[in-house]
């Protein structure tokens, strides 16, 4: 690994200043992607900016009225050890528990996972399904971006030079709602999604009031399949309606063939995972556990 | 007399015979006598006074580290087999 310098800004403003002064700087939260990429020569930098001393990037705040805010550098293990989050967003806790393994979860953050912008990022589909937004800070102030609009291609995001992701915001869980992220991996842990599906459903008296569905690893970016969710709205909760939504998700996928699976297999998985995730989310909504 | 089993790929020397009886009290003597009967065969088994690389000799079913020096009994079976490696 080539030499780089190291900075620990104490505020968002200071971090933005460093990013502006060093266009080649790289941000460090958990480092589970960055250090691997630097070592493999896939990325280069002359300055690593450690975000873990900036309060806003390291806070978890929950308010039943306003929802949940997670600092972009908060490692997964803090999310799943947080009892409040566990009660309000069980699917999010599951998500934080399946990124990498125990040691990776001690470092990796949802914000970092999003900013790495891998098509297979596990965090994106569920965050999209939950209607999460990104708070981004830059020299000109802050802006909010829906998670589905954050990634623009493999390893590319909407972040402009000098901008950084500060936190993620999840709206308060609607009544009678449930969410679930399911991914397919050949091992049972420590693996990259071959495909993944994140679902949130809101039920209303035996029917779907609304639903949001997003997919992982089957397009250049995490894929929000709005139509699949819309197809459920107003429909009765049954095999046929769920199958229709799963089929829309399957048909929307634009996967490639690589070492993790063929395009055909991945498309097939989208249908299976979407159906299973909807069923699991419905069950959760019915149990009142989200 | 000991029985020598001829490896499949060397049976061109023995006119297709898969086993022949030859005199000899050691593997070396057996091979020398084999050479008398089937000229040219020794060179395929022995190189510079040693069994060729990666060939082992088994007497009565047991691979021997003694190679050409191994004793052969009057009713012994002699086989030439690939030397086994392990992990």
């Amino acid at each position, binding site marked *: 690994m080539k030499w780089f310098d190291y900075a620990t800004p104490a505020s968002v403003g200071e971090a933005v200043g460093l990013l502006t002064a060093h266009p080649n700087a790289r941000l460090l939260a958990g480092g589970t992607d960055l250090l691997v990429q630097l070592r493999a020569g896939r990325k280069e930098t002359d300055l690593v900016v450690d975000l873990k001393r900036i309060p806003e990037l390291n806070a978890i705040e929950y308010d039943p009225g306003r929802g949940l805010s997670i600092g972009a550098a908060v490692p997964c293990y803090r999310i799943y050890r947080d009892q409040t989050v566990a009660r309000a967003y069980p699917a999010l806790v599951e998500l934080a528990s399946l990124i990498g*393994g125990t040691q990776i979860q001690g470092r990796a953050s949802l914000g970092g996972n999003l900013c790495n912008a891998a098509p297979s990022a596990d965090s994106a589909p569920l965050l999209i399904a939950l209607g999460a937004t990104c708070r981004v800070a830059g020299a000109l102030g802050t802006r909010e971006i829906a998670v589905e609009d954050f990634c623009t291609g493999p390893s590319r995001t909407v972040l402009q030079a000098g901008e950084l992701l500060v936190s993620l915001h999840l709206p308060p869980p609607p009544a009678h709602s449930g969410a679930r992220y399911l991914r*397919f991996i050949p091992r049972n842990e420590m693996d990259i999604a071959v495909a993944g599906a994140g679902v949130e459903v809101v039920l209303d008296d035996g029917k779907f009031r609304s639903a949001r569905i997003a997919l992982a690893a089957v397009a250049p970016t995490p894929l929000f399949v709005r139509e699949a969710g819309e197809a459920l709205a107003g429909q009765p909760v049954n095999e046929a309606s769920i199958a229709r939504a799963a089929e829309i998700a399957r048909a929307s996928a634009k996967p490639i063939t*690589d*070492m993790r699976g063929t395009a055909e297999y991945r498309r097939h998985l989208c249908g299976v995972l979407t159906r299973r995730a909807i069923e699991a989310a419905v069950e959760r909504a019915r149990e009142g556990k989200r | 007399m000991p029985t020598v089993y001829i*490896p499949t790929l060397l049976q061109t020397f023995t006119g297709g015979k898969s086993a022949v009886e030859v005199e000899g009290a050691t593997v070396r003597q057996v091979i020398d006598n084999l050479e008398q009967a089937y000229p040219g065969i020794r060179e395929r088994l022995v190189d510079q006074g040693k069994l060729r*690389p990666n060939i082992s000799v088994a007497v009565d079913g047991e*691979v021997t580290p003694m190679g050409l020096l191994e004793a052969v009994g009057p009713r012994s079976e002699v086989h030439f087999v690939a030397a086994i*490696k*392990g*992990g």
Partner: protein
Amino acid sequence: MKTQEYSVIGTRPIRHDGADKVTGRALYGADFQMAGLLHGYILRSPHAHARIRRIDTSKAAAFPGVRAVMTADDFPQAPDRLVDLGEGDTPLSYARGNVLAKGKVLYKGHAFAAVAATSVHIAEEAAGLIEVDYEVLPCALTAPEAMQEGAPILHEDLKTKEFGEQTGRVSNVAEHFRHVMGDIEAGFAQADVIVEREFNTATVHQGYIEPHNATALWNNDGRILVWCSTQGAFVVRDVTACLLDVPVSRVRVTPMEIGGGFGGKIPVYLEPVAALLSKKTGKPVKIVMSRKDVFEATGPTPGSYIKVKIGARKDGRITAAQAYLAYEAGAYPGAMVAPGAMCVFAAYDIPNVVIDGFDVVVNKPSTAAYRAPGATNAAFATETVVDEIAEKLGMDPLDFRLKNAAKEGTRRADGPKYRRIGCVEVIEAMKKHPHYSAPLGGPNRGRGVAVGFWFNVGLPSSCTISVNADGTVNLVEGSTDIGGTRTSIAMQAAEVLGIPAEDVRPTVVDTDSVGFTAVTGGSRTTFATGWAAYEAAQDIVRQLKERAAKLWETDAASVTMERGIFRAGDKSITFQELAAKLDQTGGPVVGRGAVNPRGVGGSFSGNIVDVEVDPETGKVTILRFTAVQDAGKAIHPSYVEGQMQGGSVQGIGWALNEEYWMNGSGTMMNSSLLDYRMPTALDLPMIDTVIVEVPNPGHPFGVRGVGEANIIPPPAAIANAIYHAAGVRMNRLPMNPPAIMEAIWSQRD
């Protein structure tokens, strides 16, 4: 000695090196430190096949912190000859070429230059400044591809060999093996059922967790001192001496603790380079591979193309069997197809057999042994075909195997007759195991069985034992301890001496300090080095009898020893008491044992496995796994079980997910432990073990090696279980979810 009389053998003492290994104090190769240490970095080819037109190292040499740069030209260019690389002979030019390529690189990751610098980061950065002009050549990546007419030729001087004969054909086929027994045509004519299937298996890696490493110091007295992790310190000594063209006595190799090998740490990759860099700099040089280097440039075991045809009569007797095996050697010959050919039908008594084996070079890393090398690929083919025939005949798969099982006196296709073996006993133990008749307990589940055989090897071992005045002994041996062999060797000495295992203090020493000892491999260490320890202990007993005789003023022949007590007439003295009287009876007592044993006993193993297949994703879950193996005599049952469990799980990984995923230009795309999916703890159930003991008449305690045979049956057993769960016969490895889904889909079509 009869089994029931043993007091140490068969017990489970704490391993002697245990405390060091659970506290982090044990020193492995990469842990070696020395004042003034420089760090080496190896530059590797980005192409799978290319001619190197020019290398310019000047920028690298000028980089601050760099102390030396070298290429293959720095090796002494001794004329080509055959050299023993630990388990067989290879041309020196191939051995040298794999360490640093000259003129041509033959696989992606092939080493060709090296840098020594004050830090590993500087060495790496400087290596990136070496300029190379490549002429990229087309590559051949699989055996069938490389065997085709017009395939890119790796070695212009390589001609196909057929039992010692150069055929004169320049080709990628290094060697052709053939075994014929009986009349194959007549055999198939007698058959009522014939099944013929083709199989493809992917290249897989041994996957040890510790990367290769070496530190070398070219000392001022001209001696070359090496510290490294290796399966065989004497192999490293001999190969290093050979490549550096110095006598073996000029090299001393100190084996550090080793973090796994499985056959992959027999070859020498780094030591000669570290030594030459040390010569150039006058400083010790350490080189440690990255995980990517380990995948791209060490190990792996051959991928293969196999065709197996078996015929059987209605009564369940196999009448004929034919196999065609083409194994990928990687860049240099030596694909382990010979043992594959010897093992492919080794479990069965078959009158009519033809086996053809081909050793084929391809543009992949030069393959190394991997636990029963060659046998797993072959058994995957045979054991799934056998399962299919048993099904067609309506026979229980174990009954079918029992009916055809090899026994003492069965003639193998490669000629010799078996001596005492445990094939029948292993299959009977499988049949008797409650797992075999337990209900499966759900849909999409299936049970499979398979068996495997491995020869094991003997090879030389040396050992000395010296007696301490407190009644303990020091045991000095040369077998690096990868899985508890210090203890299994010490226990055999303890048994002879009649003292507790804890009273034997085993130490693995450098090549200056013990007699020649071959690799820790081939399941030989507990068998052969244990035998050397047995001989050394017998030597001690002989000498101590003389000492007791001296004390008692009697004749040594009248002294007996049993369980550590020496007796003559009404006199007796314990081992401990006698040990305290050595000075007055003639001085220190040192025993020695050196063996190059025959009497190697092969080992059979068998698996029963239950799987569940998700019919929508093709994912296989291992629900229950039982491993059965003939150990001859289990010296330390815990470590025998450990070998069986570890081998089984490597076999499970090979079966389900592990593979070199190569792109068309020969780059391994999954060269990390994330994407080369070895099983994690969460992917497995407990692995139940049954140790069968059919004593090996060739060993003083009946030992058969247990290190290898256990990896052979899992892929076939799992394939058979998948068939019973999902209705598809898998004919390729790995049987990963997409492969199973494809099989399910193509069956529906």
